[in-house]
C-alpha cells in the first residue's frame, strides 16, 4: 500500500511533470500536455506557497490525515452542504491528498453551468478497438491499478465481437444443443456471452480482421435506475446531466450496481491501488478524486475537465475520432448535429433509462 505513506519533502516541485505523463506509452499525448501546461503556469505561483505548505504538512504530519478522516466521518451529503462547508471539505481533502500523494492536489467544486446538458455520441463504425480510451480513463480518473483480482478497475469496456459470427461456414453450428431436432444447415450462433475479462483482450494490432467493437461505459441515463434504488441519495443526476456519486456519503450497499443495466458501476473492494507518481492531481469532488475502500464509483464524464470546457479524456485520446462530446442544448454542437443527421440508437432503449450516451454510424 503506497497510499498511507508519510509525505516526502518538497513533493510539489518534483513530481508534477513526471506524474502527468501516463505510464502507458500512449501515442495521443494531448491530454497530459494540457495539464502539464496548466501546471507549469501555476508552478511559479505555487513554488513558494507549496514549499510553505509542505513545511506545514510536515510539521503536522499525521494530524492532517487524522483531522481529515475525523472531519469526513461527520460531513453531510455534498448536496446539502453550504458553500462554507463545501469549501471546508475541499480544503480538508486537498490537504489530505497533497500529503498522501506528495504533490499539490486540487479538488474542484465547480457546479453545473446553466444552459448545459452534456451528451455523448459514439460512432461504432469507426471504433478500432485500440482500448486507448480505457487506459486514458484509468490514468485521468485515478482508478485502482492493482493486480490482485478486484483491485483493477476500468470504467470503460470495449466489447469485442466476432465479425464472422454469421459467415457461411458457421451455418450449421451452434444451437440446437442436445435435444435439437433440426436437420440441415442452420443460422444458429451463440448468444452474446463472454467469459470474465474477455474485454481485456490484447491483440498485436488493431483493428483485427475478424472483429468489431462496442465500447460501453456509464450511459448517464436521464432516468437512472441506480439513483432510484440508492437508499441514501448519494448518487444523483447533476443539473448538467452526468450521474455522480458523493464518495464520502456512499455506504457501499451496492444496490445501484444491481440496478444498472449497463454494468457501469464498480465497487472498491479494497483501498484503491494508486501509485503516487501516477496519481492525477487535478480532481473534482464529484469526479476523479481518489476514492476510499468500500464505495462505488463510475464514469462521470470527466467533470474536472468538462466543467471547464474541455473534452473527457476518452474523447481526447480517441485516435479515430469515434467519440464525440458536447452540449445537447446547443444546436450547433457536434453532438446535436450528430443526433440530428445520423442513424442514432441507444443501448437497451427498451428499459426506458433514456441514456445520454448515443451510438451512431455513418
Amino acid at each position, binding site marked *: 500500500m503506497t497510499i498511507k505513506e508519510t509525505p516526502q519533502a518538497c513533493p510539489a516541485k518534483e513530481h508534477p511533470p513526471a506524474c502527468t505523463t501516463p505510464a502507458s506509452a500512449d501515442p495521443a499525448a494531448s491530454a497530459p500536455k494540457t495539464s502539464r501546461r496548466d501546471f507549469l503556469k501555476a508552478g511559479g505561483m505555487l513554488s513558494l506557497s507549496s514549499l510553505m505548505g509542505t513545511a506545514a504538512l510536515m510539521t503536522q504530519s499525521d494530524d492532517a490525515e487524522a483531522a481529515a478522516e475525523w472531519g469526513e*466521518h461527520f460531513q453531510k*451529503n455534498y448536496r*446539502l452542504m453550504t458553500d462554507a462547508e463545501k469549501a471546508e471539505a475541499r480544503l480538508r481533502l486537498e490537504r489530505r491528498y497533497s500529503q498522501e500523494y506528495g504533490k499539490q492536489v486540487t479538488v474542484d467544486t465547480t457546479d453545473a453551468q446553466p444552459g448545459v446538458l452534456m451528451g455523448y455520441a459514439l460512432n461504432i463504425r469507426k471504433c478500432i478497438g485500440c482500448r486507448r480510451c480505457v487506459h486514458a480513463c484509468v490514468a485521468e480518473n485515478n482508478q485502482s491499478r492493482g493486480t*490482485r*483480482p*478486484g*483491485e483493477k*478497475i476500468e470504467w470503460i*469496456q470495449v*466489447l469485442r465481437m466476432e465479425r464472422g459470427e454469421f459467415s457461411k461456414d458457421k451455418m450449421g453450428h451452434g444451437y440446437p444443443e442436445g435435444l435439437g431436432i433440426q436437420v440441415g444447415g442452420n443460422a444458429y450462433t451463440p*448468444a*452474446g*456471452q*463472454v*467469459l*470474465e*475479462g*474477455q*474485454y481485456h483482450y490484447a491483440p498485436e494490432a488493431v483493428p483485427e480482421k475478424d472483429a468489431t467493437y462496442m465500447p*460501453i461505459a456509464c450511459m448517464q441515463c436521464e432516468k437512472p*435506475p441506480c439513483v*432510484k*434504488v*440508492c*437508499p*441514501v*441519495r*448519494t448518487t444523483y443526476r447533476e443539473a448538467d446531466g452526468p450521474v455522480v456519486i458523493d464518495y464520502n*456519503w*456512499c*455506504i*457501499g*450497499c*451496492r*444496490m445501484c*450496481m*444491481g*440496478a*444498472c*443495466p*449497463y*454494468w457501469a*458501476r*464498480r*465497487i*472498491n*473492494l*479494497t*483501498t484503491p491501488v494508486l501509485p503516487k507518481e501516477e496519481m492525477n492531481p487535478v480532481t473534482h469532488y464529484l469526479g476523479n478524486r481518489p476514492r476510499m*475502500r*468500500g*464505495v*462505488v464509483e463510475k464514469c462521470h464524464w470527466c467533470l474536472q475537465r468538462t466543467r471547464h470546457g474541455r473534452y473527457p479524456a476518452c474523447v481526447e485520446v480517441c485516435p479515430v475520432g469515434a467519440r464525440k462530446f458536447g452540449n445537447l442544448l446547443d444546436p450547433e454542437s457536434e453532438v446535436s448535429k450528430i443526433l440530428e443527421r445520423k442513424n442514432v440508437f441507444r443501448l437497451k432503449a427498451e*428499459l426506458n433509462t433514456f441514456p445520454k450516451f448515443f451510438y451512431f454510424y455513418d
Partner: protein
Amino acid sequence: MQQLISFTSDYTRYVLKGGTKFYAWMGSLAVLIIGMMYVFYLQNTEGLIVTGMTSQIHDGLYFANLVFLVGVAAGAVTIVFPAYVYHHEGMHKVTVLGEMLAISAVIMVTMFVFAHMGRPDRLWHMLPLIGIYNFPHSMLGWDVLVLTGYLILNAICGFYYLWVKYTGGEINKKFFMPLVYISIVWALSIHTVTAFLISTMPARPMWFHSMMPIRFIATAFAAGPCLIILAFLVIRNNTRFWVDDSAIKLLTTIVTWCLGIALFLTMSEIVVELYARTEHANGLYYLMFGLHGLTNLVPWFWGAVILMVVSFVLFLIPSIRNNFKLLPIPCTMAFAGIWIEKGMGLIVPGFIPTPIGEVTEYYPTFVEWLLTLGIWAFGFFILTILLKGAIGILQGEIKYGAAK
C-alpha cells in the same frame, strides 16, 4: 420500576443457570461468534476483497442469508396467525416463542446487513433526521423500515406478554390485540418488500418477475415453521415445558402445503423461462445446467430440488409426519433446501451473466463462511436466551416476588 429491575435480574439469573449441555451449547456458539468478530474486523480493515465478491457478482453469501432469514422471521406469523385469528389452543400457548424466533431472525438479518455493506461505519447516513433516507423511492429504504418495525412490534408483543405473565396481571387487550393484528400483516410485508428489493431491477432478468413475492412467502412459510418445529422438539425433550402435539401438527400441515406451493412456483418458473429460452433465461440456465462451461451452482440447485421434493413427499406420508422422532428429518431437509434455493440459488445466478453478457463465477471465501456461520451462531445464542427466559416465565419459574 421496582418490578422492572427485578424482572431484568430474575430473567438474567434464570437464563444464566443451566446444565452442562446448556453451557457446552452456548460455549461452542461463543467460539464461532469470536471467530466471526475476527473476520468482521478483517473485512473492515482489508475491505471486501477478503470475500469472493467482485464487481460482477457483488451480492453473495451475506445477501443470500439476509434474504433467507427475513423469510424465517416472517415465518413466525404461522404461529401468531392461528393463535389469534383461529384461537388455536396449542398455538396460543407458544405464540411468544414464535415472537422470540422472529426477534432473533431480524437481529441476524441486521448483522448480515452490516456484513454485506462496504462501509458499515456509515450506516447512520440512512437514519432519518441525521442522515438522508431515500423514501419512498429506495426499496432498500422500505426494507429497513419494515424490518425495524417488525423487530419493534415483536419485541413489544413478546415482552409485554412475558411481562404480564411475570407480574401476574391481566393483558390489556385494547393495547395488545391491535398490535398482534398489525404484526400479522407486517410479517407479510417484510418478505414482500424483500422480494421487491430484487425483483424490481429490469437489469437482472432472472429476478425481474412478479412471482417473486409469493414465492418468497411460500418458501418463508415452509422454512420458518421447519425451524420452529425443530426448536419445539428440542424444547419438549430438554425442558419441562410441553409443546402440544396439536401445535406441531398444525405447523407440519402449513409446512407441507407451503412447500408444495413453492415447488409448484419453481416448476412454473422453469417452464416459462426454458420453454422460450431467451437470453433472459441465461441466469436460470446457468443455475440448472451451467453456462459457458461454468457449472459451480449446478450441484447446489439439484441438491436443493432433491431436498425439497423428498422432504415434501416425506411430509405427505402420515406415519412420518406424525412421528415426532422422524419429523426432524424432513424438517431439516426442507430448511436446507430452501436455504439453498432462496439463498445462493437465487442471488448468485442473478448476476450470471452480467448485464453485458459476462459469465463469471462466485466462490465464497473462508472469511465469508466463517462470518456467516458466526452470525448464525449469534442468532442461535440470542434465540436460546430468549426462548429459555420465555419458557421460564411461561412455566411460572420466574415470577415476581417468587425469588424473595
